[in-house]
C-alpha cells in the first residue's frame, strides 16, 4: 500500500528561527495520524507547510506520490480539491459577512465548478455534518462553537478530499459536542475513506481517533508509533511527561505525575546534544551526545535513555 502523504525531512525556518528541523512521517489511505506537542513545538507549521500555506525550505512532501513542496499557488490549486484544511478557530475561520450556504459552497466557486447546484449541495453538506438545512441562511455569529466547527467540516468535505489536515478540531468544544465531532470524523473516514492529519494537544482525543501518532518537540519528532503502543508503552521521557500530565476526571485518581522542568528552550538557542536534556527527568551525561532517530518495530524514537 502506498502512502497518501509522505513527508520527508521537512524543514521550515523564518529567518534564523528554525521552526521545523526535519520532520518525517507518512499517512496511509484511510488512516488518521495525530501530531501532538506543546505550544510552539511546530505542530501547526507542519500542516501549514504541507498545505503550502507556510514556507518549507527543504525536504519533501509527497501527496499520492507527487511532490508538492514548493509548488506555486497556481500549480497547487487543483490539488486543493484533494487536500482540505480545517482551521483552528471555528468562528474566526468563517467570514462573518457570508451565509453558511456560501461558506460551504465557496470551494466550488474557487474551483470553477459552475455545474454544481449550490442549494442542493449546501443541503447535502449540512446533512453530512448533521446540521438542519435551514442553517444555510445563517451567518457565523448565529452559530455556536460546535455548529461553527461542523460548518468548517462541511466546507472541508465539499470537494470530497482525500486528505484532511485538521488543526485542533476539538479545541474549545464541550465534551458532548467534542464526542459528536469525533464520531462524525470517524464515520466520514469509514464511509469516504478519508485520511486525516490531526494536530492537537488533547490526549484524550488522540486515544480515540488516531491510528498513529507522532510527538513533536522543538520542531522535531521525538517519538512515533501506533497510538496503542505510545499510550501503553511510551518510551521517550517527554512523551511520558505529556501522558502523565493528562488530568483525570476522578477526584481520587492516583496520579504519578512526572514534572517537566523549566520552560521550552528558545528556538534561537537550541540546546546541544539532546534538545530535551535540560528538562528531562532522566537525563544523564550520555545525553550531551545528539540522539539519532531510530525505528524498531514500527516505533520511532529519538532518545539515548529511553524507558
Amino acid at each position, binding site marked *: 500500500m502506498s502512502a497518501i502523504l509522505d513527508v520527508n525531512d521537512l524543514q521550515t525556518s523564518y529567518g534564523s528561527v528554525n521552526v521545523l528541523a526535519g520532520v518525517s512521517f507518512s499517512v496511509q489511505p484511510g488512516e488518521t495520524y495525530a501530531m501532538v506537542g506543546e505550544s510552539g513545538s511546530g505542530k501547526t507549521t507542519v500542516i501549514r507547510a504541507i498545505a503550502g500555506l507556510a514556507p518549507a525550505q527543504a525536504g519533501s512532501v509527497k501527496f499520492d506520490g507527487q511532490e508538492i513542496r514548493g509548488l506555486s499557488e497556481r500549480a497547487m490549486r487543483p490539488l486543493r480539491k484533494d487536500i482540505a484544511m480545517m482551521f483552528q478557530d471555528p468562528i474566526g475561520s468563517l467570514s462573518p459577512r457570508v451565509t453558511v450556504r456560501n461558506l460551504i459552497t465557496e470551494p466550488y466557486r474557487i474551483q470553477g465548478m459552475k455545474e454544481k447546484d449550490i442549494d442542493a449541495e449546501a443541503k447535502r453538506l449540512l446533512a453530512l455534518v448533521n446540521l438542519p438545512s435551514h442553517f444555510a441562511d445563517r451567518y457565523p455569529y448565529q452559530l455556536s462553537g460546535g455548529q461553527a466547527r461542523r460548518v468548517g467540516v462541511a466546507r472541508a468535505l465539499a470537494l470530497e478530499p482525500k486528505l484532511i489536515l485538521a488543526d485542533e478540531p476539538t479545541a474549545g468544544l464541550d465534551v458532548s459536542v467534542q464526542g459528536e465531532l469525533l464520531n462524525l470524523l470517524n464515520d466520514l473516514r469509514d464511509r469516504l475513506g478519508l485520511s486525516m492529519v490531526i494536530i492537537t494537544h488533547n490526549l484524550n482525543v488522540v486515544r480515540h481517533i488516531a491510528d498513529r501518532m507522532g510527538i513533536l518537540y522543538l520542531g522535531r519528532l521525538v517519538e512515533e508509533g501506533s497510538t496503542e503502543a505510545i499510550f501503553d508503552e511510551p518510551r521517550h521521557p517527554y512523551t511520558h511527561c505529556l501522558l502523565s500530565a493528562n*488530568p483525570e476526571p476522578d477526584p481520587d485518581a492516583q496520579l504519578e505525575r512526572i514534572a517537566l522542568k523549566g520552560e521550552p528552550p528558545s528556538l534561537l538557542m537550541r540546546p546541544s546534544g539532546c534538545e530535551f536534556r535540560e528538562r528531562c527527568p532522566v537525563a544523564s551525561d550520555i545525553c550531551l551526545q545528539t540522539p539519532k532517530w531510530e525505528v524498531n518495530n514500527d516505533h520511532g524514537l529519538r532518545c539515548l535513555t529511553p524507558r
Partner: protein
Amino acid sequence: MSDTLLEIDNLSVDYETERGDLKALRDISFDVQKGEIVGIVGESGCGKSTLISSILRLTAPNTRFRQGEVRFKGDDILTKTERQMRDLRGSDISIVFQDPMQTHNPVLTIGRQLVDIQHRSKATKAQKLDIAAKMLAAVGIPDPQARLKQHPHEFSGGMRQRIAIAMALMSEPDLLIADEPTTALDATLEVQIIERLKDLQSEMNCAILFISHHLGVIAELCDRVVVMYAGAVVESGDVREIFHDPKHPYTRRLIECDPGHIKTRARILPTIPGEVPDLANLPDGCIFRDRCEQATDRCHQVPALEKLKEGHFAACWLNHHEEAAT
C-alpha cells in the same frame, strides 16, 4: 456566621433581545465559603459567563436582574453603586480570563502593568516593582527582576497565564474568579497552572470560583462542584459525590461523555443527543427533559433543587422517587 464569602440566592437574569427575554440564569443558588475552591462546570451556553459577569456586575446593557441576590460578605452586590463596585473589583474580587494572549496590554512592559494594577497602594514605585517581582516569583517565573522589563510577546502562553494570575492575586483578593484559565493551554501547562493555583490558594487562603468545562481539571482542583445546564443549577455538591455518585442525569451523562474516562479506544464516543433548549423560548417542566433518557410525566413540572444530604443538592424528580422507594 459566617464563613460564607459569596452567596448566590435565587438569582435570575434575563437578556432583553429582539426575540423576547432570553432567560440566561434561572433561580441560581449556591455559596462559596472562605478559602474554598468551587468549580462551576457546564457546557457552552449554560450561563457560566453571565454568572461571572453578574458577580462582578460587568454585564451587558441589555441585562435585567429579575430576582435574587448576590451577597458578597453579606452585602448584596446587585444594589451597590458603581463606585462601590469599583472598590470591590480587583481588590476583594479579581478575575483571570480565558485567553492569556489577550489579557495583557501588548505595548506596555509586564513590570509597568504589574505596577499600574497597584494604583490603590500608597507605596513608592520602587516598592511596587519589588512587590511585582515577588509576585512573579510566586507564580514561578524565573529571573523576575529582568522579566519585569519585558513585553507580553516575550513570554510563552503558559507564562502569560501565570502573569495574569499574579496580577489577579496582587491585591490579595478574598475571591478569585478563574474563567476557564487553562482552556487555551496544553496539558503540561494546564497542570502547572493548576498546581500553582493550589499552592497560592493555600498560602493566601483566598476562595476560588473556578469555571471550566474540563472535568479532569475540576476533579483535580475543586472542593465542591456546581453543575449548570441551560441557565440552571442542576446539581451541586462535594467533588467526590459529584464524580462518584452523581444524582442528576445530566451530570451522569456529562461524566460519561468525557473521553478521559474511557481508557480503551472507542469507535463511537458517547454523546448527549439533542440540543440545548432555546432560552428565549423555554420548554415547560424540567430543562433537561427533552434530552433525558429517564424522563417521565412528572418532568413536565420543574423540579426544585432539593437537598439530598448535607451539601449535596440536585434538581431531578428521580431522587424524589428513590426517597419514596426506600
